[in-house]
């Protein structure tokens, strides 16, 4: 943290990661325009990790976890936060070295810090996905998740994708030496209008915490869940040939509905209206949607080698 190479703001860390992964040849994508719980849900990861076609992408993904809301008071917990996601298929042999290069790029020198790969197998019950890998520790703190995808949407990944996920706020707080997320400089502290993370997100954290926990209309959400589920099934069942005789299966629009159902489930969970036993059933329903979307996607052009 004493390195002269040290970034000065949250956004500088993001910009350096963008530049670094662009230099490594990744397509730098923009966030997916839907509410998701993690960067993995972006179709650039979930769907593109399926099938034989090579792929390399990096992007920031705003992520929402309604149950983690703490009205902006907890120094480390947010219901809305950012993940940085890198996905490369097939996983290159030097992926660990590439990753370590990204740490150097944001000012974490592995010769001064203690960087460790500690076993952590990843599983997403809602996506029917799992992989093996590690959580990466820097001086005892988890700074990234590193996973070799083995299965997604119930399909074996061939070839295997390597996925890197950085929890940006936590990583940045460490690099910048900040104790409370709301105190973190978002833009350069020397800018004419310096803005902290709190300037931008404290009020939204409060508002969403209240809505997530107390106000969201659960009857409406239950209905939305059913609607998304039904629409997903309908899209998947649609005849692949359209009225003009073109063959256009619609894996992505169907997957959007699966994402929607997943987020609505998270909201209902935060409202405390889903019992322990029902929980498993809801997760199973979302997984069924994700699997069905994956089944369709692997038949499409984007999945062919």
């Amino acid at each position, binding site marked *: 943290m004493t390195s002269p190479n040290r970034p000065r703001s949250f956004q500088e860390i993001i910009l350096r990661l963008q530049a670094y992964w662009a230099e490594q040849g990744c397509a730098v994508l923009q966030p997916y325009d839907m509410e998701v719980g993690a960067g993995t849900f972006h179709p650039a990861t979930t769907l593109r990790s399926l099938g034989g076609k090579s792929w390399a992408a990096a992007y920031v993904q705003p992520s929402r976890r309604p149950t983690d809301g703490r009205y902006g008071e907890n120094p480390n917990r947010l219901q809305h936060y950012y993940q940085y996601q890198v996905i490369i298929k097939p996983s290159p042999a030097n992926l660990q070295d590439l990753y370590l290069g990204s740490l150097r790029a944001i000012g974490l020198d592995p*010769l001064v810090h203690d960087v460790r790969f500690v076993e952590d197998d990843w599983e997403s019950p809602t996506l029917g996905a799992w992989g093996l890998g590690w959580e990466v520790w820097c001086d005892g703190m988890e700074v990234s998740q590193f996973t070799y995808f083995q299965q997604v949407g119930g399909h074996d990944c061939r070839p295997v994708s390597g996925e890197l996920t950085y929890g940006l706020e936590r990583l940045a707080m460490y690099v910048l030496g900040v104790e409370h997320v709301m105190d973190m400089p978002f833009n350069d502290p020397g800018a004419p209008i310096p803005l902290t993370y709190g300037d931008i997100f404290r009020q939204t954290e409060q508002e969403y915490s209240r809505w997530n926990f107390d106000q969201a209309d659960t009857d409406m959400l239950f209905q939305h869940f059913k609607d998304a589920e039904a629409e997903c099934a309908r899209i998947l069942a649609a005849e692949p040939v359209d009225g003009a005789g073109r063959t256009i299966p619609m894996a992505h629009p169907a997957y959007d509905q699966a994402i929607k159902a997943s987020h609505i489930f998270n909201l209902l969970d935060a409202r405390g209206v889903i019992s322990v036993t029902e929980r498993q059933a809801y997760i199973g329903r979302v997984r069924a949607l994700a699997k069905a979307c994956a089944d369709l996607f692997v038949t499409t052009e984007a999945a062919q080698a």
Partner: protein
Amino acid sequence: MPDLLIELFSEEIPARMQARAREDLRKLVTDGLVDAGLTYASAGAFSTPRRLTLTVEGLTANSPTTREERKGPRTDAPDAALEGFLRSTGLTRDQLQARDDKKGQVWFAVIERAGRPASEIVAEVLDATIRNFPWPKSMRWGAGSLRWVRPLHSILCLLSDEAGATVVPLAVEGITAGNSTRGHRFLSPDAFTVTGFDDYAAKLRRAHVILDSAEREAAIRQQAENLAFARGWQIVPDDGLLSEVAGLVEWPVPLMGVIEDRFLDLPPEVLQTSMKEHQKFFSAKNPKTGRIEGFVTVANIETPDDGATILAGNQRVLAARLSDAAFFWENDLREAKAGMQAWAEGLKSVTFHNKLGSQADRVARIAALAREIAPLVGADANQAEQAAKLAKLDLRSAMVGEFPELQGTMGRYYALAAGEPDAVADAARDHYSPLGPSDAVPTAPVSVAVALADKIDTLTGFWAIDEKPTGSKDPYALRRAALGVIRLEMENLVRASLGSVAVKQYMQTLRFLQKENRYIFLKDTNSNNTLTQFFSITCLFSTDTRFSVNSERVDSDSPVFVCRNKREPNSDSANSLQITSNLEGYYEVLEELPSPNDLAADLLSFLHDRLKVYLRDQGIRHDIIDAVLAQPGNDDLVLVVNRATALNAMLQTDDGKNLIQGLKRAGNILAQAEEKDGVEYSFGADPKFAENDQERALFAALDTAEPAIKAAIAAEDFPAAMTAIAALRAPIDAFFDTVQVNTDNQIVRRNRLNLLHRIRAAGQQIADFTKVEG
């Protein structure tokens, strides 16, 4: 004699898998070499996070040449037979030899297998080992199909002797074996070549890798203790953590940190658990204060600032973790001091099992049972009930939510904060025990009452819903619960009739099996009111928890019915009935549950099976336990064990062993006669029909033994009962030596059979001797 060196270099291997992987590598490779005809002097396996290494010394350079002769078909046999023989031997016809045999001329194949060089065999064995390695979990990577625990990067495979070292030619899925490896990921990342194991280990050490995990463990332990000693502290020993940490580093550098003052008031268990689980830190205790005041983290690197940045980072992460813990602790304490009502309320929304209700329901059952059991274990009933009600409240605390392994431990702190007496607080901590065969058993009466109630309720509950362990499946750890009951009773000499306890607890459980529109009916002994052709019921549980069934009135031999309320009678169903007493309406039977007595008997037989396992470890055979289980009071495990122990001791003596034979012989003769004659010989043996001294002596011996046995049994003095019956050995032996039971004189025969009955009856007071083997 060459030496073999193998290194499989990969991305980071999970620490928990390394020890097993070392052993698997050693065994798979050496077994493979030996199977292929090589021998070796010694082998050793090593692991670091990034490598598995095997060294085999004194390997033979070649496998021996072997010669095998196989007899084939006769030379005049049909072509098909010869072709088959050629196929199976892999030879051609001109390679066969024709030899004269007894039956004529026969083809012989002489198959010589030349010895093979070690390198060829090593290549094959290592290839197979890599492809079939039994990792608990393995994965693919990139575009390849090879599986390894994490991506495998390089293979070092070297045979070396006086002449030098040679790489074994081998390639697995594009990875070609070589003679080079790499050192520490950051400190010595460059590749280097090696010529043999000693060179390898020495160069690795220069490249900041300690190959041997035992050496890393010793280094960590030593340096951690030195660091602690310098401050006058002591490291809290934790072998599991030590071996895990040694599997996370190649170049261990322990660093000592101090816990900030603001966290020192946290319970030591919280500090230790948080540091261990989240950070893999060792705890350092200050013996002067008895508190945990420091920690040791083990880095994998030496840095120019001597670890200052690393320690500062770890300290910062720890502070964040402990801030959370302190926040939980303070909130929890506040709730505890306020009486924990919110937690009790919260337990209602935590499902224990969807058929057995919530944790709150479960706590209510355990509390009722703890109250019942309290007098049997010398505990105050109010305290036992109170302890049971408090014991699981910590499940709702934030701290246990974060660290489930602190359940009970926190319960004790919170009970004390709530102003409960020590006995109640200790029970909150200890009621989960014993968790395994070597775990300590609680001895404080209140703890024993709650611990027993907890386990008996669990058993009865799962028995009621027919979720018993089968084969290797025991998802609710019911065998462990049963062993817990046994150990609690045995080690505290608890005298309880488990049968009636189980019946009562079953009734308790049934009350909670009721749900909306789902009613439980039991048969009332006083009722003659037959409502259907199937059963008559007037007794039922109310959903009102104040109403409890009068168990005295329940017919415990009749099954329990789960019924659904219906507005109208279902004319098609004979199972539809009208209940006229407490609840109006018509009911349809959904399910039939076992009668209270059947459930208790089945549960008891499960406990008896576990008891046999428990006693086997103490040297008492299962047949001896079977022999005493036929006696009354077999649901009192202490009584069963006392009987079995006394019987076992007697059977170790000569008198005992011979007595068994005599008793069995008496029993057999009697049983045969009874079967043949169709009568039971049970009384009226009269000494006046005795024909010799031995017979008269047996009468006399029985006259003495019978009351002695009876008195001893009544006093539960089983050793005395054994002594009394053992005294019959000589008279019985003498009787059978000199007297023929089945004599022609029917009066004498009948008298003797009746005498045998007295022997059998005397034995039956003590045990069912027919069950004793041998």
